[in-house]
């Protein structure tokens, strides 16, 4: 096969050249353990981490003492929820508010916490995937310890009004955790302005390496450790730091911050062309997610009468990578909980494809993919027993 079209950047991204170059220094040259402050090699590693922490902190307008490195977005989400729940264990507060469209790292953690007496309210979303601020307010009780709402959804790209949510949380004295794994690098994050108390990040969604992420914890927030042990991360997250990964994460953040506005503008324009292309060329499609409050790289449609996996297999034959539902669930057979929450029926949900464009995507790529999709959908619809419904 000749050209490849990687359009699954919400699943993961190619690691950027500059990121790799930076990481390489920390393998066989500056390989010291950052806890070993009494010799040169250890100090070099420590400096690298301090520097990385500063870069990440600046990017979200936090203090560097409020940034902790983790093994990724899932660990951060688990830490936020379990950490706050366990800090309140047997102390009266036992209620979490979240939404029906969170990532499984949040939803499954909430389910798990039930056995420790935690109750969760799952907020509805409208057909665009937006929560209702009134419903949020009404859900808050004196027992509520945490609100956990994602900044932007990984499947349909819908961006929530985090600043308003932050104001509500603050007003009611409830902590706010925001899963910003998809939002990072695509939406301006300002933990001060947006009144965020805890924020989950992941490097591999913005050109960094896999298996490294971060957590912002506002000073003063009471949270238990998820991983106990050595004194790393100022005693809050044990384990020898993945220095090379941390350095790579920071480099990716640095690159993202450099041409943030231009990048977002370029992606948004490509995304809009993509959306128009699908709408104009393929009948009986439904755009999932919000028409404007959406991630600049997300194009998610349901194609009636056909099923997602067969589309993906045919796309793969043309070198096009996309996803149906989120990457984490594409191995499973259940239709996406996110699409169902927006009110799609199961059948339609099964026929949904997410394209997420990246830095390397061109207008020509998009034209090609739209035409390929047109052919694929026609072909599968011809095979489908429900084409004429």
């Amino acid at each position: 096969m000749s050209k490849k079209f990687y359009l699954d950047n919400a699943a993961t991204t190619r690691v950027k050249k500059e990121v790799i170059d930076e990481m390489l220094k920390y393998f066989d040259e500056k390989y010291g353990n950052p806890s070993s402050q009494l010799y040169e090699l250890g100090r070099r590693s420590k400096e690298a981490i301090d520097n990385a922490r500063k870069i990440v902190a600046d990017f979200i307008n936090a203090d560097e003492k409020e940034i902790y490195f983790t093994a990724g977005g899932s660990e951060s989400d688990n830490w936020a929820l379990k950490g706050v729940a366990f800090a309140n264990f047997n102390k009266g507060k036992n209620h979490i508010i979240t939404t029906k469209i969170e990532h499984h790292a949040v939803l499954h953690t909430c389910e798990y916490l039930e056995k420790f007496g935690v109750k969760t309210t799952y907020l509805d979303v409208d057909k665009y995937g937006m929560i209702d601020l009134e419903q949020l307010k009404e859900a808050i009780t004196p027992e509520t310890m945490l609100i956990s709402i994602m900044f932007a959804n990984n499947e349909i790209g819908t961006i929530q009004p985090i600043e308003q949510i932050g104001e509500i949380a603050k007003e009611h004295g409830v902590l706010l955790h925001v899963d910003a794994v998809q939002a990072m690098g695509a939406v301006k994050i300002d933990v001060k302005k947006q009144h965020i108390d805890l924020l989950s990040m992941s490097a591999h969604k913005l050109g960094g390496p896999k298996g490294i992420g971060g957590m912002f914890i506002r000073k003063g927030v009471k949270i238990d450790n998820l991983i106990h042990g050595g004194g790393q991360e100022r005693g809050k997250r044990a384990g020898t730091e993945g220095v090379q990964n941390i350095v790579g994460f920071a480099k990716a953040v640095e690159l993202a911050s450099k041409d943030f506005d231009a990048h977002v503008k370029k992606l948004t324009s490509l995304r809009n062309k993509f959306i128009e292309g699908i709408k104009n060329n393929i009948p009986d499609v439904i755009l999932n997610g919000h028409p404007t409050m959406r991630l600049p790289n997300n194009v998610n449609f349901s194609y009636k009468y056909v099923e997602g996996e067969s589309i993906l297999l045919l796309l793969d034959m043309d070198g096009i990578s996309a996803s149906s539902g989120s990457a984490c669930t594409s191995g499973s057979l259940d239709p996406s909980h996110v699409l169902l929450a927006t009110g799609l029926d199961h059948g339609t949900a099964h026929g949904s494809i997410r394209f997420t464009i990246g830095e390397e995507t061109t207008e020509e790529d998009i034209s090609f993919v739209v035409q390929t999709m047109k052919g694929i959908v026609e072909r599968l619809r011809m095979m489908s027993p429900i084409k004429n419904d």
Partner: protein
Amino acid sequence: MYTEAVMDHFRNPRNVGSMENADGVGQVGNPKCGDIMKIYLKINDETIEDVKFETFGCGSAIASSSMATELIKGKSINEAVELTNKAVVEALGGLPPVKVHCSVLAEQAVKSALFDYAQKTGKVIKGLENYEPIDDDDIHCH
């Protein structure tokens, strides 16, 4: 993830399409579960002269339908009714564990079409005496 045979039947499915005046038509599955299979039979002298299928479903569902139609084409209805999902899986060189139910669907679609034929013609097909078409309201997805 899929064998060569699955990919071949998925890419170039045999016997795709619908059929006018079919002697037996069977449909199983449910859009809720993300899979529907419809099988059309042309039967002459108890032999399946022609077969067509339409499938809404995953790659393995399409491949299973295609393979199932190939396996029963030209066979007698008594042979066809004995088609098992296991035979389909074997003919496809295997299916991933989570995808085995797609072959079950193919088996059921064939049985359902034969049952329809039996009902229309009043014939009794051995093995279908107790066949109960699945009630739509009572569907359990895999």
